[in-house]
Structure formats: structure tokens, C-alpha cells
């Protein structure tokens, strides 16, 4: 039903990482439960709502649980123009999210400032927070957001979890 590549368990990682089985399994759990923090700032917020609404239904990916509290969310979707006045707030919200966390810059304004080349607008949210996936479009279609989510999931699927942790060292798995 789905393409194989959507699962984090692919040969590429198996080749790269040693702790494949455990890590891949854990990464699989993690990537299927990405709870977004909707940072709805402007027009893109409406399309973000559309992503959550019935037609595009982000819940299929297990991500419909939009938490407005940064502490409970995994992935911040910056949707809309980030002005300088808002930038501090945004940064603070990002800082409040617990690790691991991801950022999607949705739309032109969030990614680069877009059409607002003006004194008030931050030219790209990646100036203040690390962005994992950029989405072009003004605003992007919901499909693009879903694509970005899939991209994020892929990315999460590749991130090792146990590596470097105390547990791994205890299990003496590091050497292999």
C-alpha cells in the first residue's frame, strides 16, 4: 500500500549505523508520532488548518494532536510572516520545546521573508531557529505540508536515538 521508503527501516541506514535494529525501531516510533506545534502567524496558518481539516487530514500521519503548549510538541510549524516583534516570542517558544524537536518553515515568508522585503520582517526564520524542512509557496498547498511532514519523518527515521546515551554504553553496544 505504501512505498517502502516511508519506513525508517531501510538498507541505507542499516549500512550506515551500527545500532540499527534498536535505533531504527525507536526512530520508527518517534517518527510516527510527530505532534506539531502550530505557530500560526499569518496566511499560512489558514492552510495549516486546512492540513488538519478533513480533506487533507494530517491525523493519518499521527500528527493531528496540535499542542499549543510547546512543552508537549515535537515539531514546530512556522506558518506565516515572522516579524521582528514576533521573532523573540518565536525563539522563546522554540526554546521551550523539549528535545528532540524539529522545525518546518512553511511558506515563503517563514523561509525567506518572501514578498515582504521590508523593515519589519525577519528574512527567514532560519535566522533564529534551525529549520529542518522548508516549504515553498505562498501559502503552500496542504499537500506540500504533508510532503514536508513525510520528509521530517524520513529525517527522524535516520536519526539514531540510543547512540551515545548512557543506556547504549551500559549495554556495551557501542563497540560493535
Amino acid at each position, binding site marked *: *500500500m*505504501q512505498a*517502502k521508503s*516511508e*519506513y525508517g*527501516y531501510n538498507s541505507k541506514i542499516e549500512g550506515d549505523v551500527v545500532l540499527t535494529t534498536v535505533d531504527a*525501531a*525507536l526512530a*520508527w*516510533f*518517534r517518527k*510516527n*508520532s510527530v505532534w506539531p506545534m502550530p505557530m500560526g502567524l499569518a496566511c499560512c496558518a489558514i492552510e495549516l488548518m486546512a492540513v488538519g481539516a*478533513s480533506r487533507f*487530514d494530517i*491525523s*493519518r*500521519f*499521527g500528527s*493531528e*494532536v496540535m*499542542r*499549543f*503548549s510547546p*512543552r*508537549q510538541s*515535537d515539531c514546530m510549524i512556522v506558518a506565516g510572516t515572522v516579524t521582528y516583534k514576533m521573532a523573540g516570542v518565536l525563539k522563546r517558544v522554540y526554546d*521551550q*520545546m*523539549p*528535545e*528532540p524537536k524539529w522545525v518546518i518553515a512553511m511558506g515563503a515568508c517563514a523561509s525567506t521573508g518572501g514578498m515582504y522585503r521590508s523593515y519589519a520582517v525577519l528574512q527567514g526564520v532560519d535566522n533564529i531557529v534551525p529549520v529542518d524542512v522548508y516549504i515553498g509557496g505562498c501559502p503552500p498547498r496542504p499537500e506540500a505540508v504533508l510532503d514536508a511532514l513525510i520528509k521530517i519523518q524520513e529525517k527522524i527515521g535516520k536519526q539514531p*536515538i540510543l547512540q551515545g546515551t548512557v543506556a547504549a554504553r551500559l549495554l556495551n553496544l557501542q563497540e560493535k
Partner: protein
Amino acid sequence: MDWNFIIFSLVKIAIVVGVVQGLVAYSVLAERKISAWIQDRVGPNRTAPPFAKYLPVLGPLLTRWGMFQPLADGLKFLFKEDFTPAGVKKIYFFLAPAISVIPAMLTVAVIPFGSQIGAQKMVIADLNVGILYTFGIVSMGVYGIVLAGYAANSKYPMFGGIRSSAQMISYEISMGMSVIPLLLIVGNLNLSQIIGWQSSHGWLVLYAPISFVIFMVASFAETNRTPFDLPEAETELVGGYHTEYGSMKFALFFLAEYSNMVASSAMMVTLFFGGWTLPFWGLDHAATSLGMGLVQILVFLVKMLFFMVIFIWVRWMFPRFRYDQLMDLGWRRFLPLALVNILITAVWLWIRS
């Protein structure tokens, strides 16, 4: 008291807690799925481990129903950074989630979930004051929320905590009052006895429908479910008392909320809908065979699930109340109604006697 008792009790505890945990996990999924269906959506359907699709028929089905979603959520929380915001009162910040989970789990101890298998009664503790016990334990549940609100050192959780303490205390009264007619009718506080009475006289919901309504509404309020979800009202208080909680601690609050739902549903089934009994197929008396015993447990579970679905369903129907309206409803509508209900029942019993 002997070893038998202790061993069997431990086994029962283990099984019940395990089942409740599973129920909780899947009620979260049910919540998401049912809300999706109500809203013309599909709901989680892509979460499946790679091997799932190799299962012949089951695989796609499990995937479509999102059966692995709770697993994913739970484990994700487990591996999330355990975050302690600055300025919180640490001990309470850590204690609060635990305190809110424990009472929710303890409540099920006195609920008879089946008649008996072999010589073992299908209840962990057959207390004489079973109903009172439940109320006592339920009243402990508020501490978790209040402490969470207090510990977070933030204003939104604080509001959530204050609101919920007031709300839970208020509705506990209506809840307690609503049960009194049952006690008047049955004349016993033991939940097993209440079920026994129901198997010979018919379900109590027929005798005390008003009690049922009050109890149900009060349990909605006690479990902080819409339309009574003020303590966590998302659009007002962001997340209420658990705004500042993340990762596993937040998951524990989630667990507590749904465990409370399970407990409330179980109480409703036990008190009003005859517990594990069914009026036909000979299911209305204690089981003699193993199969019968299992079927009765199944009956109980099915009834309980029905109420869980109601719990979930209602959430997607209504706007929530305002704080003062909620209090008004509790104190000025339901409390007098419950009192009148007691009076009516007492008079009715007096006339009949």
C-alpha cells in the same frame, strides 16, 4: 488470610492493571479515530511497523485502524527529553503526574469485573464500603491536578489547578448525592451486593434514571471531559494544569485522564447497568463454569466500552461551559435535583414498604 489469597490478589491486580493500561492506550486511539469519523476523516492509519504489512489479512487492517499509534505515542514520550522548566517547585512538579495517576488506578480495585472463575471472585477487594471507597479515592485525584497547577510556577496552570479543584469538589457532591438513592434502594454499600441486587430486581437505571443522569454528567466533570474540560481548556488556558508538562510526565496526565474515564465507565456499569450481568442467557447469576465466567467478564467489558464511546462521542459534540455556568449547573441545578431525587426515592420506598 492466607497465601492463596495473597497470590490470587496479586494475579488479579496485575491483570486488571494491565488491562486498564491497555484500555487507556487504546481509548486514546479510539478518541482519535472516533473524532475522525465524526468529522468525515480517516484518522491515524499509516502507523505500522515494517513487518506488519507482511501479515496476510491482519496487516493492512491493523494499519488502517492505526493499531500501532498508541505504541508510537507512548514510546515517543518515553524518549523525549525530560524537561524541567525553570522556577518550578521541583518535588511537586515530579509528584503531580504520579499523584494523578495513582487514584485513577486504585479506583478499579473494588469494581467487580466478573462474577467468579472457579472459587475466585472477580474483584480485587470486595469491600463493604465499596462505593465510599471509590468516592474517597476519586477525591484524591484532585491533588495531582492542583499540585500540577501549583508547581508549574506559571499562570495558566495555576488557573487550571484552581478551576479543577473547585470543579471536582463541587461535582463530587452531586455525584455522591446521586448515588444515595441507589443505596436507599439496595440497602448496601458493597458493589458486589449491588450487582447481586440488580440481577434479581433489574437494572438500577430503571429505578433511578435521574441518578444515572446526574452521575453521568458528574463523571464527565470529574474526568475533565468536554463540555467540562475547563481545567485544561485549550483555547482559554492553553493546556491548563499540564501546560508546562512535557514528555512522560505529560503522558502520565493523559493516562490519568483516560484511566479516570475507564474507572467512571466501570462505575456506571456497575451501579446502573448491572455490572457483569445480562438479564438473559443465564448470565444473571454467578458463573459456575470457566467459560461462563469469561463471558461475564466480556459482558462487563462491552458495557464499559459502550460508555467509553459515549465519553468520547460527547466530546466532539459540544462547546464547553463557562466557569461560572459550570458551577451554577453543579450547585444550583444538579445538587438540588439530586436532593429531590433522594427525597422522591425515599418517599417512594416509604410508600412501597
